[in-house]
C-alpha cells in the first residue's frame, strides 16, 4: 500500500508555508522569486496528490499548465529585475517605492 494522500498534503502545506514566510521576510527580489517557485511547487504537489486520490488525470494536466505559466513568469520577472538592477545596483524590494507616476 502506498502512502496516504494526507501525508503529501501535509508536506505540501508545510512547503507552501515556508515559501510564504520567505516572501515575507526576505528583501532580495531574487530570493523572493525563488520562494514563489516554492509555493508553486507546493500547489503542484497538491494537484498530483488529488489526481491520485480522485483517480482523475485532470490534476496532472493542471500541473503541466502551472509549469508552463511558471516558466513564462520567471522569464518576464527576471527581465524586469534585470531592468531594475540596470538603473540601480543593489536594489531591494523596498527601493521601487521611489517611483513616481
Amino acid at each position, binding site marked *: *500500500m*502506498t502512502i*496516504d494522500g*494526507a*501525508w*503529501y*498534503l*501535509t*508536506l505540501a*502545506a*508545510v*512547503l507552501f*508555508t*515556508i*515559501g510564504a*514566510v*520567505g516572501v*515575507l*521576510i526576505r*528583501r*532580495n527580489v*531574487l*530570493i523572493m522569486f*525563488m*520562494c514563489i*517557485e*516554492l509555493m508553486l*511547487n507546493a500547489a*503542484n*504537489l*497538491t494537484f*498530483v*496528490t488529488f*489526481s*491520485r*486520490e*480522485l*483517480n*482523475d*488525470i*485532470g490534476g*496532472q*494536466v493542471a*500541473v*503541466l*499548465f502551472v*509549469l*508552463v*505559466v511558471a*516558466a*513564462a513568469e*520567471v522569464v*518576464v520577472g*527576471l*527581465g*524586469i529585475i*534585470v531592468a531594475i538592477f*540596470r538603473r540601480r545596483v*543593489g536594489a531591494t524590494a*523596498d527601493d521601487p517605492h521611489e517611483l513616481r507616476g
Partner: protein
Amino acid sequence: MAGSVLAAVSLPDLATFLVAAAIVLAGSLGVVFGRNPVHAALSLVATLFGVAVLFVEENAQFLAAVQIIVYAGAIVVLFLFVIMLLGVERQERVLVDQFRGQHFVALGLGALVLAEVLLLGTGHWTTGAHATTGALNRPLSNVDELGRAIFTSYLLPFEVTSALLVVAVVAAVVLARRPDRGLDEGEGRPADPAGRAVGDGEVTE
C-alpha cells in the same frame, strides 16, 4: 494510531517518501535562510528534485521528468545567469528587520497559513465527486493518458499556453534591450543628439 497507519505501508514507499520529504524541507529552508543567492538557487534545485521524486512515487512519471527538465534545467539556470550577470552574490543580513516587527508579523502570518492549510488538508478534503476527464487506472501509461487528456479535453488551454510563451519571449527581449537605443528608430540607424534620426531630412524632401 500512527503505528497502525505506518504498518500498512510498504517499507520502500515509506522510505522514499521520508527521504524525499526531508530533502524538500531542507532545500526549502535553505532557500529562505540562505545568505548567498547562489546557495539559495542550489537549495531550490534540491527541493525540485525532491518534489520530482514524490511525483514518481505518486505515479506521475511524465511530470517528474518535466519537473527536472523545465525547473532544474531551465528555470534555475536562468536564475543563476541573472545572479551572475547582476553580481548580486553578496550576502544579505537575513535577520535584520526592514521595519519594526517584520519577522513577528511574518511568522504569525506563516503560522496562520500553516494552520489553515493543514486544517483543509486533513479535514474533509475529498467531496467524492469524480471529474469526467478520464480515469487514471485505465491500462495506459501515464504519458499516453496525459497526452490524450491534453489533446482532447484541454486542447484550447494548451493552444493558449503556446501564445503565452510567445508573449513571454517577446516581453523578455523587449525588457532586456539596452535603453539607450530608442524604440521608434530603426535598428542600426545612427541618431543625432537631439533624438532625430539622421536620415529624416532626405526622406521628407
